[in-house]
């Protein structure tokens, strides 16, 4: 059974590209364009992995990450943070809040797919 991926970003074009990439890699994809929509989607059905943008309206990526980690039902959910702010502190902060990986925009499409595959493989 294909792994379920949730793509969260407020930039429609980025969502579109990630959706295309994940589908092409054979995953089941849902999307959300802000933090609250993301949490609603997670609550509806916990995905295996979330590609999570940081700078978003109505709950940013950190908040969403925290909320997912606080939910015991979602302990197996993998989270990859995506951010356009390339500073080291952002990365530290994301990892400290419980993200599993961290990718800086603009990203290599190949790398994103690889990282997603690796994380899901680790999880078994």
């Amino acid at each position: 059974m294909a792994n379920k991926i949730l793509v969260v970003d407020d930039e429609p074009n980025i969502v579109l590209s990630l959706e295309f990439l994940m589908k092409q890699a054979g995953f089941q994809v849902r999307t959300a364009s802000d933090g609250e929509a993301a949490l609603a989607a997670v609550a509806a059905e916990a995905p295996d992995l979330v590609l999570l943008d940081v700078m978003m309206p109505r709950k940013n990526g950190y908040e969403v990450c925290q909320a997912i980690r606080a939910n015991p039902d979602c302990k197996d959910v993998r989270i990859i943070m995506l951010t356009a702010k390339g500073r080291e502190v952002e990365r530290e902060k994301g990892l400290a809040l419980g993200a599993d990986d961290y990718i800086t925009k603009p990203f290599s499409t190949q790398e994103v797919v690889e990282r997603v595959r690796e994380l899901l493989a680790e999880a078994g």
Partner: protein
Amino acid sequence: MLSDGVIIASSMIYMGVLFGIAYYGDQRADADRSIIANPYIYTLSLAIYCTAWTFYGSVGLAATSGVDFLPVYLGPTLMAVLFWVVLRRIVRITKAHRITSIADFAASRYGKSGLLAGMVTVIVVLGILPYISIQLKAIATSFSLLRQYPQVAMPAFSTQQPFWADTTFMVALVLIMFAILFGTRHIDTTERHEGMVTAVAFESLFKLVVFVLVGIVVTFSMFDGPGALFQQAAAQPELAKLMRFEVVPGGYGGWLSLTFLSMMAFLFLPRQFQVLVVENVNEAHIRKATWLFPLYLFAINLFVLPIALGGRLIFTSGEVDADMFVLGLPMMLHLPDLALLVFLGGLSAATSMILFETVALSTMICNDLVIPLLLRANPRWLAGRADWSGLLLGVRRAGIAAIILLGYLYFRFVGESYALVASGLISFAAAAQFAPPILIGLYWKRANRRGALIGLSGGFLVWAYTLLLPAMARSGWIGVSFVDHGPFGLELLKPYALFGLRDMDPYMHAVFWSMLANVGGLVFGSMLSRPDAIEQVQGSQFVNILERERHDGDSLLWRGVVETTELYDLLARFLGPPRASEAFDRYARDHGGYPLQADSRLIHYTERLLAGAIGAASARVMISSIVMGEVLSIEEVMTILDESTQVIEYSRRLEQKSAELEAASAELREANHRLRELDRLKDEFISTVTHELRTPLTSIRAFSEILLANPEMDVDQRSKFLSIIVKESERLTRLINQVLDMAKMDSGRTEWSVETLDLRTLIQDAITSTSQLFRDKAVALHESLGDQPVLVTGDHDRLTQVVINLLSNAVKFCPEQTGEVVIRLRSVADPDRWRIEVVDNGPGIARDQHKLIFEKFHQVNDSLSGKPKGTGLGLPISQKIVEHHGGRIWVESEIRQGATFIVELPGQA
């Protein structure tokens, strides 16, 4: 009926009565049952101000110049109002420092300066001569008039007669005798002349009663009461004028300057200082005198105008000088007894003035001129003398004689051509020169010796040049041409029109220039030089006299040691052994004996006693001459004091410096804080810009890689992805342009083209540029731009950019299909300003966001998914552009009510 014998005998008897009263007063004082210790005697003694000048001269003045006689009495009345503020201070200081005269006062204030004391003395002596001369003149004239009774005619006066046949000379001799008898019985002048004060109080009452009596007789017996008198006078246009201001020479200005002169003279004439200050026994008396004395002045002035008018009505052909109306009228009425009383009244007014004036002056001459000179010269015959008290008395007596004789000479050679008042005013103006150093010195600590010396000499020279010299010239003493044409023909230096200040009453003119020189010299001289220690000590003691109960300041100056016997010898030399031992006994009683080695307290005590006899400046010199050579010389004490003041000064400066440092470091902290804040903002800006740049770049890279990796993608999807790449590239370009724009504007490197442009066509161009956006979203645009060109000055492209930004924002936030945008151009209340309004029916902007949206990269939180995103720089840039044009931009909006963006620009002036 009135033979010389009768007149002279009654004069002698009257003088004898006065002397008796004075003697009685002294007896009572010695018995410690003073009769002058009450405010009424004090007030009456102040009436020594009213001399023969008042008695005869006021009427004379009123007869020719009407109300011009009043300022001379208004001045003291005004000064009486200030008694509690000014006089009380002076009295307290005088008591504390055992000051004996006005010269002593000035010298003490400015560091016990002998030079200043001498200068004041010289000014006083020169200044007072005219005043003394008019007293002599008044006595002599009244005597000559009276002795011709029953004939009433002015005696033929002549300066041709030899002086030994001159009545005035005789009068002068008699007065010298009296003054010596009355005034120099004791040597310690701080011990008040209680007897003399009592006598003056009596004679003040006497002259008041006589003058009022004459007034009543003239008003009610010659005429039928004041009503009838004034009616008769008013009937003659010549006399009616006297009751109006127009006859006053110099007009209101002259009137005011006379009032000022009188105020100052009332306080600073030597005899006034004597009775007001030195003879004051109780400060409480000052309070009562404040209202009682003006009452006296009022009473004595009540009948001046009636007598003057009466005189003018009776003596129509000028057979009696106006100055002698008071005496002439009773003679005319054949009232010899009253006439004799009038003569005695005038005599007593003149006598008391001369008495007190000469006693005060001779003390000054002795203490501040002769003694210092003697001490400096130190001739051999003096060195051996153990007791100087006889010498001091001799000097004072000689001083009295000299002053009166000089007064006589002035009268004989200068004064005779003048009316009483004119000579008196010259003296007043001289006395007024003491006002600046003394009054300012009472309140301004920084006033110092140099300032006082400069100011006083400046004021005095101006006085002499503008008043005394012209007076001498008029009497034919020196050529009159320098008065009319200036010295050496220099018009600018004419004594009555100095530096071109013409058309002024001479007194007003003199007051103006002398006060300017005096006050200016005092202030600038004081500012430009540093006072030494003793000046500082004295200055602060004088200024703070009311705050401090005891004054121990200058005993500090005597840290040296001296044998008590030496001090005693010194005191005995000037006061005489009996008074000296009495003083030391008193000290022993009060302090439980005295030490063999005198301490600073005993030295100070001796100095003050000595100051009473020979003045503060001389006393200081004497004391320091015997204290010198001991452990600490006076110079060393001064140095110590000076150093300690310097230390105080340094620590004050240090404190100031550290306060300044603290302020500077606070400023630095603040600046640092601001810099850090700016740094943080810049950091945030860069981080935000990075984010904004990376976002479109992310899409571009992702789709490019997708397209590259999937060459066989179907055409529709390929072209969709390609168009995304194009759009995001455009967005990136736009963003980069705007960031550069913003950076340029922030750093002020933007180049602006300035031209006259038509806002209407500009808006239409902007509408054309954005029409595609409106069509794409099917948003309706309504325009209301008027039909006239609207000219403003500005940068065409930038302003277009603003309008396009507003329009594209509006269309961006409008709902599809139902969106409506209105653009309006209109003038506001102020016709010079124009408004561009862009109204949309979008979601609206919450109030708390109204300001924030103009900040860089601030974007309105919007829940609509897929909402169009801007760069977050459009509005900040628009704001910069509008503000550069002197306009402003703002938004009016409520949530769900749409938004109106308003740009207001100044029209073309």
